[in-house]
């Protein structure tokens, strides 16, 4: 027994030593040829520079990479903790496609990683790419949007969503580099850079040092478009423009919460069209409503850079027929959701009564971007599919999905006259949401659960759409979709739409735990559901389930089977021909 333990201990030590060093980019990274990225080696021990040996395909790395890395004798953590030594080489470029095997040895530490540098010759097959990202878009959102918007008779849908007719599909894995679970930062970053990263990170690998701005960078698609093409760039979202998804088009930070810095990243890239919320981070801190901690006035900076500023629906509409760069900011924070904006007038609609929706923003962006003879890359985010799924406000989440689908409809119209356009529709992660039948107020029973119709008793919901706008005329119909989350904090289930404003299921108590929000306790029929999540979870969480991606147009046939989010970037880069040499 003693011998066995000793043998096990020896094995563990060896295994630990063999994995001690970390190398960024990580093993199995896929890298666009010619794309700049930071190379970093983190050692667990403090060593002398001469003790470090790094080879690339057997050749000394400084020859292969064209420059030596900066040597850091001992990196510092928080609270004065000392990490080991590190080597850092910024903005490395590998022009030649192929496999690069990097081997690091320093003392007892060894690490070997392999990268696949891929070509994406110009011209690509697509002049334009429109990338639709439904944040949190899960299968139930699609099904629910179709049932609500189109209806169903005898088991067949009475109509099709715009996304239903995109002809190529893939299942997409969304996991992050540090967990099977994931957030909207690392997921969109993988789509927009081709490199998977850690939860909360954008455009960087997550290194061990505390600063959120020193992590090894990778190139974003907007930077690649600027570097190699004359194409225009557009970013459209119903969230704050600094929110994780739109930020990932341009940003580099370990922490998505660094929104003031992210505005600076937008300013560095200067997308031709930027439409969304989040003006608070554009305002100098002295302006009431600002969320900045400095005196930078990005409204003026963008104006000085030639942007036309629009702040409501009418000003957005007035852009038609004009030209030049556009900054549209329609809310200080996240824009209100469709159900509040167009129907219930709740949320913050009283304060921002003239916000455009995603359809108007998509149309305006396409009109501007299509003026560029070289083509464009446009990212359109339906942000609040996710923002309403976290608090389990399913009516709002499904209305967001319908609006998102209508924006896809605008793009499908566009490609009729611009067939050299690749449309991609996907989510960044899923939610644990399912439709399990209907809730029928006319069913007998004293408890609301008695009114949940399942199997044959579900029947069909009785939403109507008399005006044909694609949205149900009312959400509080007597036989409505029964939608539930697989995971939840403590909350009061009301079995009803939240007509007074977005649902806020749980609030924090004095112990830092989330407890059911008592504001819903007295809703007739409400029942307490004791959560199945840790008590520090404020709302329902992201699911690890695959996302369904759909696409149409040149390059869409590269989407098939199971793909990682980082693989999607390769398809986009190839379609756009982003492996071209840098513009002079």
């Amino acid at each position, binding site marked *: 027994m003693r011998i066995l333990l000793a043998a096990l201990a020896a094995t563990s030590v060896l295994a630990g030593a063999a994995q001690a060093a970390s190398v960024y980019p990580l093993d199995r990274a896929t890298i666009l040829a010619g794309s700049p990225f930071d190379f970093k080696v983190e050692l667990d021990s403090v060593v002398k520079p001469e003790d470090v040996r790094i080879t690339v395909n057997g050749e000394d790395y400084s020859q292969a990479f064209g420059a030596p890395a900066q040597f850091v004798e001992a990196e510092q953590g928080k609270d004065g903790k000392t990490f080991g030594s590190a080597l850092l080489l910024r903005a490395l470029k590998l022009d030649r496609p192929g496999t690069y095997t990097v081997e690091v040895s320093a003392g007892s530490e060894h690490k070997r990683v392999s990268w696949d540098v891929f070509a994406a010759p110009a011209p690509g097959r697509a002049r334009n790419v429109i990338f639709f990202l439904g944040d949190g878009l899960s299968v139930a959102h699609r099904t629910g949007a179709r049932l609500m918007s189109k209806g169903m008779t005898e088991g067949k849908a009475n109509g099709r969503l715009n996304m239903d007719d995109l002809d190529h599909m893939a299942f997409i894995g969304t996991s992050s580099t540090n967990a099977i679970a994931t*957030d*909207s*930062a690392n997921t969109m970053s993988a789509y927009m850079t081709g490199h998977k990263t850690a*939860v*909360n990170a954008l455009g960087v690998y997550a290194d061990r040092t505390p600063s959120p701005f020193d992590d090894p960078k990778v190139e974003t698609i907007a930077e690649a478009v600027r570097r190699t093409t004359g194409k225009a760039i557009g970013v459209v979202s119903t969230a704050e423009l600094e929110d*994780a998804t739109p930020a990932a088009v341009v940003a580099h930070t370990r*922490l*998505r*919460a660094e*929104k*003031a810095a992210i505005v600076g990243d937008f300013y560095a890239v200067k997308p031709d069209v930027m439409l969304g919320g989040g*003006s*608070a981070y554009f*305002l100098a*801190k*002295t*302006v*009431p*409503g*600002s*969320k*900045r*901690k400095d005196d930078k006035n990005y*409204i003026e900076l963008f104006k000085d850079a030639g942007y036309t500023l629009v*702040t*409501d629906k009418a000003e957005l509409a007035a852009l038609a027929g004009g030209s030049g760069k556009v900054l549209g*900011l*329609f*809310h*200080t*924070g996240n824009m209100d959701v469709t159900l509040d904006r167009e129907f219930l007038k*709740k*949320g*913050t609609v*009283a*304060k*921002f009564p003239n916000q455009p929706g995603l359809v108007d923003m998509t149309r305006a962006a396409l009109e501007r971007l299509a003026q560029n003879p070289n083509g464009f890359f446009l990212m359109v985010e339906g942000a609040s599919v*996710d*923002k309403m799924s*976290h*608090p389990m406000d399913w009516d709002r989440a499904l209305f967001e999905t319908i609006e998102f689908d209508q924006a896809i409809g605008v793009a499908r119209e566009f490609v009729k006259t611009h067939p050299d356009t690749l449309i991609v529709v996907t989510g960044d992660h899923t939610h644990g949401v399912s439709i399990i039948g209907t809730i029928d107020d006319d069913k007998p029973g004293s408890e609301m659960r008695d009114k949940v119709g399942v199997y044959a008793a579900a029947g069909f919901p009785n939403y109507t759409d008399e005006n044909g706008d694609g949205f149900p005329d009312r959400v509080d119909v007597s036989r409505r979709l029964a939608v539930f989350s697989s995971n939840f904090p403590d909350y009061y289930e009301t079995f009803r739409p939240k007509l*007074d*404003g977005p649902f*806020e299921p*749980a*609030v*924090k*108590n*004095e112990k*830092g735990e*989330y*407890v059911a*929000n*008592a*504001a819903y306790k007295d809703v007739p029929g409400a029942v307490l559901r004791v959560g199945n999540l840790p008590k520090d979870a*404020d*709302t329902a969480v992201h699911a690890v389930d695959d996302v369904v991606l759909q696409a149409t147009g040149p390059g869409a046939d590269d989407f098939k089977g199971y793909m990682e989010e980082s693989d999607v970037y390769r398809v986009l880069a190839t379609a756009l021909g982003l492996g071209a040499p840098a513009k002079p």
Partner: protein
Amino acid sequence: MRAADERTAALSGRCGSVSVRRRRLLQSLLALPLGLPLGPALAATPGLEFGELYGKVSVLGLEFSDKVKALAGQAVTMRGFMAPPLKAEARFFVLTEIPMALCPFCSSDADWPDNIVVVYLDHRQTFVQANARIEVRGRLEVGSWTDPETGFVSLLRLRGAEFRSD
């Protein structure tokens, strides 16, 4: 962790005005020995509601209301919900119009809601369950200020404040 903010108010007027009946109730509560002493004549202290903080709201910034400008530097009372302290040692908390999670949508951002007021306590008081409404009395301070301990930026504060269950 992140800048506090005074964004625009979601003004449904839920706090409503203090009715005469409510006022009597408050006065009678004050007479009881159980609460913290809120000082003399609470009813005489002007009340300020969340719906009254800003006069103009726009994408390009907010403007404080005339009432806020007029009450700057004076003692006021506000009713709302206490968001948990950012740090245990923080000397302030955030007063919100409706009970809420700090960050309803994510695990990383500490995004504050539309309308908040930062409350600096005169002396330490125990944090109360967020589901319970509180009434706060303090001196209204108007204008941008960065908390030196936390970096929290606020535009409206109640200084030297005390609170009690509403």
